[in-house]
């Protein structure tokens, strides 16, 4: 049954970079306009953008780590796509710049008078500007270091076919997992939860993780399936190999719903004013529709699309679900971040205009261009990986 791995390196479709360029230019124009017109609102959106691009890069990095750690075979043919996508963590720091410059406009706790507030005073050991930046730098370093470790080992294997490299990466991913959990939680808490510094939810990091992994997975799904349809991946990949992508997405759609609902149920039941006001902010005026919409966009619709078994093999439906999930994550971040903005500025109900589109457009464009650059001199499949043959032979 086993045959030789048939792979020849071909460049990714040229129009991807072209579309990416167009989106980047468009995004840059929108971002420039929004900073010129209302820099505070633009800064809030830059945080949305940063959390979104973190989700793309870190979600991909996590799939690499979890594949090594779990010894997963099904995802091996897609691992190089994930590795190239994970290189996005290299450009994440750029998107932190607006938030850092305009820190006092968005982070209430960073003001000097915040120390007069008893609660913020008690939190100031953690929530202070210096420690905030130290944490951020440490987190970026962790991600970038592990990105280089994983990819260098994996790419070396293309040539040497040395199985020891797999073993080495397994050890590193065991080290990476706890660091990943902590660093992701730190970023979610620091950059999103601390926008409303009085409020707290212990499940916040897990909630953000659910969206992160789904986003990474959705990007991998779209890219891998599109490449494979053009025959740019290894020969012999087909519907049976898509199945696990769909199953994983389906599982994490449920995971997200489970976590989101747990958070809501506990706060709703306990009914403590210091916790409920966060949800009430997202329930007032037109925000209520955004909240209801979230349930559908992030759970009901993808759930129904992915439920039937054939859907998990059908490239069309898989891509549709992945697009919806990427949109859902942006929607989710909007729902997490923007009500704080409207509340702080006494705006009634939700706000939505080109400000909110600017960063997602820019980021999707940048990621497409970046993917083109980073994939240039690389194979699109880890052809030296000992598990690759087994993965290709897989049948449902």
């Amino acid at each position, binding site marked *: 049954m086993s045959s030789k791995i048939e792979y020849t390196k071909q460049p990714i479709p040229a129009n991807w970079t072209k579309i990416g360029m167009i989106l980047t230019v468009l995004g840059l124009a929108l971002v420039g306009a929004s900073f010129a017109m209302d820099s505070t609102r633009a800064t809030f959106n830059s945080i949305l953008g940063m959390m979104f691009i973190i989700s793309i890069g870190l979600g991909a990095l996590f799939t690499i780590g979890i594949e090594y750690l779990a010894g997963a075979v099904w995802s091996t043919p897609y691992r190089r796509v994930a590795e190239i996508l994970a290189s996005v963590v290299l450009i994440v720091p750029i998107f932190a710049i607006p938030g850092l410059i305009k820190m006092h406009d968005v982070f209430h706790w960073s003001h000097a008078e915040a120390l007069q507030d008893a609660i913020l005073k008690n939190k100031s050991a953690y929530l202070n500007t210096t420690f905030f930046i130290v944490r951020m730098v440490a987190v970026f370093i962790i991600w970038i270091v592990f990105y280089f470790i994983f990819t260098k080992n994996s790419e070396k294997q293309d040539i040497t076919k040395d199985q020891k490299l797999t073993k080495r990466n397994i050890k590193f991913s065991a080290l990476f997992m706890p660091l990943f959990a902590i660093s992701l939680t730190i970023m979610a808490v620091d950059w999103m939860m601390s926008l409303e510094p009085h409020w707290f939810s212990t499940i916040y990091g897990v909630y953000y993780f659910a969206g992160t992994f789904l986003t990474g997975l959705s990007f991998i799904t779209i890219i891998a399936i599109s490449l494979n349809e053009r025959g740019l991946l290894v020969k012999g990949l087909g519907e*049976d190999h898509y199945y696990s992508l769909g199953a994983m997405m389906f599982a994490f759609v449920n995971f997200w719903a489970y976590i989101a609902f747990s958070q809501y*149920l506990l706060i709703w039941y306990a*009914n403590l004013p210091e916790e409920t006001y966060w949800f009430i902010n997202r329930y007032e005026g037109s925000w209520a529709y955004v909240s209801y919409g979230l349930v559908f966009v992030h759970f009901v619709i993808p759930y129904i699309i992915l439920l*039937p*078994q054939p859907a998990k093999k059908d490239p069309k439906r898989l891509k549709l679900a992945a697009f919806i999930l990427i949109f859902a994550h942006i929607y989710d971040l909007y729902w997490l971040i923007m009500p704080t903005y409207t509340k702080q500025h006494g705006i009634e109900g939700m706000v939505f205009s080109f400000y909110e589109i600017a960063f997602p457009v820019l980021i999707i464009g940048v990621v497409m261009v970046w993917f083109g650059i980073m994939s240039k001199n690389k194979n699109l499949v880890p052809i030296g990986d000992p598990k690759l043959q087994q993965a290709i032979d*897989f*049948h*449902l």
Partner: protein
Amino acid sequence: MSKNLFAVAGLFNTPDEIIKASKAVNKQYKKFDVNTPYPVHGMDSAMGLKSSKLGYFALAFGLTGMLIALSLMTWVTTKEYPLVIGGKPFFSLPAFIPITFELTVLLASIGTVLSMIFIFFKLPNNSHPIHDTNYMKSVSNDKYGIYVLAEDDNFDAEKVKALFASLGAADISEILYNEDDLEEDVQVYQHFKIFDKKFVVGLLSIVVVVSGLAYYMLNKLFYMAPYNWMMTQSKVIPQAPVSDNFADGFPMRNPVEGTVAKGFMPYEYKGKPEEAEKNLINPSEVTPENLALGKIKFDIYCSPCHGYFGKGDSRLNGQFPNPPSLHSEKARNFKDGRIFHIITDGQNNVMPGYYKQLSRDDRWAVVNYVRVLQRSLNAKEEDLK
């Protein structure tokens, strides 16, 4: 007992061979089946199987569970037994979700397994010609088997054997069945006798053993005496001379002095008619309902002595001193408070107090009714206008 041909079976050594074999068989025959010791990947498409309908059963059962949970909880919490819990509305969807989820999953899984066993596997149909054959022993151990049914339109035993041989079968055999095992008037493929003696005996002995074990374990092995502290706790025993609740032999303590029972207001003008007349103010509102209440109470409690119209025409035939008429000038000039006082406290140790029978509101209603009676004989000027 005549033996008929059920199918021709072939055994293969590797999963790759069985996949190749089922692809080849699938091209020529429709009625065939494959048996492997474990699920072999890629078998569904090799056999040309359509995707199973079992998923629809799961969906239907899951939705049923969801509906039952939601409607049951809605009915209980809003109609049958509404309780305020944590200040939440009776219909609180978030609180229902966990249970709805549980019941959805429970019904979906139980329903799926049961419909698989009963509909797809056709339980209680427990006998099949491939049982107790060498073929069955091999495929449940280390071989991969395929058999083509004699019922198939293209079936020809020799051709099937030749096909298996050309595919490299390790062993080729015929599977036979007894005419007697067949239920009447049915297709061979579908139905064999339901109640095999061995099966029934086996089932019965399982039932006996399991229920016996359960009984023994719960009632003997793990038996625990139920809590009996309700029998031994200190309590009041009716007719017992003393109680051991307190040292003085009383079962309960007297209420602290000045304790007022719930809903009771002490009467502060006992034996002080003048003060009552001065201070008490009629709080009731004169309405038809109030007067009707007053009439009822008056007729019950006052009329035996005072007569239905308060004329003092007692029905007691001299067993009790006749009261004076309530229409006297004196009685008409009583303030409401005075009449209230007389009803509450009695008068001159002759008329008894009625505070035990009549609530405050009742008493004021009677006062109002007495006023009506009085004005029926001595109308005020304004009544005539």
